[in-house]
């Protein structure tokens, strides 16, 4: 400010008819800045501060991750095995490449290579969309097996939307960590107890097409906590509903149920029969069909995971892990989408040839943002996909 000469003392927007002389400001320098360099430096600092707060924005989720990794290592190990590294690798490669094209674009802008800039920005956008595409595939894959977050986790029930098979015999044990006696007991009275447990609010549901949709807490063991993420809430309490299921009157998880109906013995018999037939048809003795197994090729490790499944294949363990997974990758994906929006904006400005070697700040700043999005993924990928 003190370097302003008397000729330029007047307000900036009066350079049309003001006798004091035309402002020296180029059009791309805002009027409150003295020089182009000052504007560029200010913008740089501004975007770095923004990135700093973005890191802190993710920090809560990193803490959530550390929480489950250190306090629930078994759940972590079991649930994490469902993640397919190949998708993560593809995404990592795509994102790093898009960071490369973005940086290249900044360089093009600096060197006045306008067509190069347009091409690089277009490639970056392509990479961003590609990333989202892979994520879409991954997510739908998981959803189809019931690998949802928290209370909507239905993988242990065979997973897919409305496709629950058979009695939840195993599940009596899944929330009792290491309580084998309950496991045996649950398995024993898996079929028979359906009738007796009607009073527990294990309201069964529509039976049709040979498919059985059933309330998961048909078995609520006396000595075990409620399973399947059933939280005892007062009547009418709103809770997460959705493709996985809703909570019924007593807080039990209902799969594809419209209303909790009173179970009569006849319906329960039919349910139990249909379940038994189905599981026999699939060659399993007495129990329900196996839910989708983690894609592990090593048979020993797969067997180990089967053992872990007994303990952790439920909403409060594996489901919690997937809460972390979806929150972290979901928030990251939201930032990718935001990145697409801003890169598109810069791309449109680049098409209008707004950037040149004296003015490329916005490209630089958007580039920095995109690098941060990439950096977050570079943390997410090993933390979620690689670490056991």
């Amino acid at each position, binding site marked *: *400010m*003190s370097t302003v000469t008397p000729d330029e003392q007047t307000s900036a927007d009066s350079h049309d008819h003001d006798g004091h002389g035309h402002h020296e400001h180029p059009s791309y320098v805002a009027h409150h800045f003295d020089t182009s360099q000052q504007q560029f430096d200010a913008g740089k600092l501004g975007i770095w*501060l923004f990135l700093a707060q973005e890191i802190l*924005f993710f*920090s809560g989720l990193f*803490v959530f991750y550390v929480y489950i990794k250190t306090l629930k290592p078994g759940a972590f190990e079991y649930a994490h095995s469902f993640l397919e590294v190949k998708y993560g690798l593809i995404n990592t490669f795509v994102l790093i490449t898009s960071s490369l094209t973005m940086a290249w674009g900044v360089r093009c802008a600096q060197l006045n290579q306008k067509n190069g800039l347009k091409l690089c920005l277009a490639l970056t956008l392509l990479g961003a969309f590609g990333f989202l595409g892979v994520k879409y595939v991954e997510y739908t894959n998981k959803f189809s097996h019931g690998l949802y977050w928290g*209370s909507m986790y239905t993988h242990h029930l065979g997973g897919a939307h409305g496709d629950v098979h058979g009695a939840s015999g195993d599940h009596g044990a899944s929330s009792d960590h290491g309580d084998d006696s309950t496991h045996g007991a649950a398995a024993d009275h898996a079929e028979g107890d359906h009738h007796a447990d009607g009073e527990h609010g294990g309201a069964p549901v529509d039976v049709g097409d040979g498919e059985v949709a059933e309330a998961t807490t048909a078995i609520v063991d006396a000595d075990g906590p409620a399973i399947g*993420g059933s939280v005892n809430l007062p009547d009418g309490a709103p809770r997460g509903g959705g493709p996985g299921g809703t909570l019924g009157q007593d807080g039990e998880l209902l799969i594809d149920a419209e209303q909790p109906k009173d179970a009569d013995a006849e319906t329960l018999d039919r349910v139990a029969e249909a379940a038994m037939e189905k599981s026999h048809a699939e060659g399993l003795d007495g129990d329900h069909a196996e839910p989708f197994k983690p894609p592990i090729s090593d048979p020993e490790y797969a067997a180990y995971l089967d053992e872990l499944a007994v303990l952790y294949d439920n909403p409060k363990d594996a489901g*919690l892990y997937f809460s972390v997974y979806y929150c972290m990758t979901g928030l990251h994906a939201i930032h990718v989408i935001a990145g697409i929006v801003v890169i598109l904006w810069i791309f449109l400005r680049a098409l209008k040839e707004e950037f040149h070697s004296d003015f490329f700040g916005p490209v630089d700043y958007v580039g920095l943002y995109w690098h941060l999005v990439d950096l977050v993924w570079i943390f997410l990928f090993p933390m979620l996909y690689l670490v056991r």
Partner: protein
Amino acid sequence: MATVDPSVETQISHDDHAHGDHSNYLLAGSGFKSWFFTLDHKRIGLMYLAATIGSFFLGGFFALLVRTELLFEGPTIMNAENYNRVFTLHGAIMVFLFIIPSIPAALGNFVLPIMLGAKDVAFPKLNLASFHLWCGGAIFFLMALLSTGLDTGWTFYTPYSTTTYNSEGTGAFQSSGVILATTGVFILGFSSIFTGINMVTTVHTMRPPGMTWFRLPLFVWAIYATAIIQVLATPVLAITLGLLTIERVVGIGIFDPAMGGDPVLYQHFFWFYSHPAVYIMILPAMGVISDLMSVHCRKHIFGYRFIAYSSIAIALLGFLVWGHHMFTSTSALASTVFSALTFSVSIPSAIKVFNWLTTMYKGSISLATPMMYALSFLMLFTIGGLTGLFLGTLAIDIHLHDTYFVVAHFHYVMMGGTLIAFLGGVYHWWPKMTGKMFNDRLGQIFALCIFFAFNLTFFPQFVLGSRGMPRRYYDYVPEFEFLHQVSTVGSYLLGLSLVGALYVLVSSLWSGKKAPANPWGAATLEFQCSSPPPLHNFDEAPTVGDPYALEDFEYDPETKGFVPVANPQGVSSH
């Protein structure tokens, strides 16, 4: 470096351009759009001022409702459920709509760029966006608060906030309001973050030649430290409330023990922001006081570097003490560590108080209205700060946690501290912002009334708390009734005094005398331009010197303001 030109003052006042009155930012353009879509930091500051003061009186109204309910034992004007809603409204409005934006956004926006001799902040459009986010967030937030049955307290503690659904409400109150309110706070949070980004960048990149870091006014140091906290802490609140919302909507289980989560985790997340937030509240206030003390005692601030460094120390240490809000939720070891750190963060604050006192010593103390508030601040903030130490002591906190002692403590620091300093700052810079002088005698009277009424309201609450009165309770045992009544009477007087203080300012707009450029004799740059400033702040480049070289200015009875002396001493490195 140029010397001070004695004719600068005259040059500025004669600088009227015919085209669009840029001699006065208030006259440069009129109509709603010229204000609501302005890029001028001064207009944005004024709009924030009006908005935050409006929020303050709304929050204050709910405070008076709370106090009225507590006038007598048992239900007085409302039942327990509505009481919970009213104190939630009071707290949430005051914290998120008033106190956090107040000094940084209203006074900081107006004053800081001019103190730097700049034409505007670094990112004027981002500044406007901050204001629009405040407006949008405020509308959203208020609709949420006023139309739902939100009764979680401003802290939204889990598991209540994740499971409450307000079954007994009817009509509009059926929604629990949690998601609506947290979304509003989320939006307001980004308003705060953008202001922080703007201030840090402005201080780094838009200082004039010659204004080194240690030539910055202390108000700028304070805003800078505050802005750092705003940028680093607020996103943590954003993700916390985001996780709370997701928990409610889809049940991820993070704060739900039945789902493997932990409600205390919420407390950690929440207080990791909300403790630094209280430093967002107090640091700018301290910055105001530093400038007020120096100017109104006609004395160079004592211990400039100590005050500057202590601002940064408070900002940094403030991130380490969040656990002192959770002594009863954490382990003995964690509590001990947090207690020790809490003691350490009190030290820089104390350093400032000593420096202000020493600045007053042998100064020529004027009791103009801003100084009345500065003196109030000194006393009230000291009480608030010391009582914070009691609360930070584990053995005592066991008895005082969640009692009225805590309520009294934070009202002493937030209201006796930040609000009083805010008022002092508004009065101090009012002539600059509006070009009008207020009635100083009336201003002094109301300032005194506020001081007495404040103590009448809140001092009994220390006693109530130490005797066991819990906070957030709408009823109490008969032993507490007298002190509650004293407090309530005090609160009515406080409300009236505050309205009076506002009246003094507003009435100056039509009956106040024209203000000189430098009514108080300050040496900082904002008083070297006319009152009100021209559109682009300075028509002539200002001279940079020691911001507290008050001896370089002398009173001129003709203009009733201060003018630079012929041979300035202060234009040298300090």
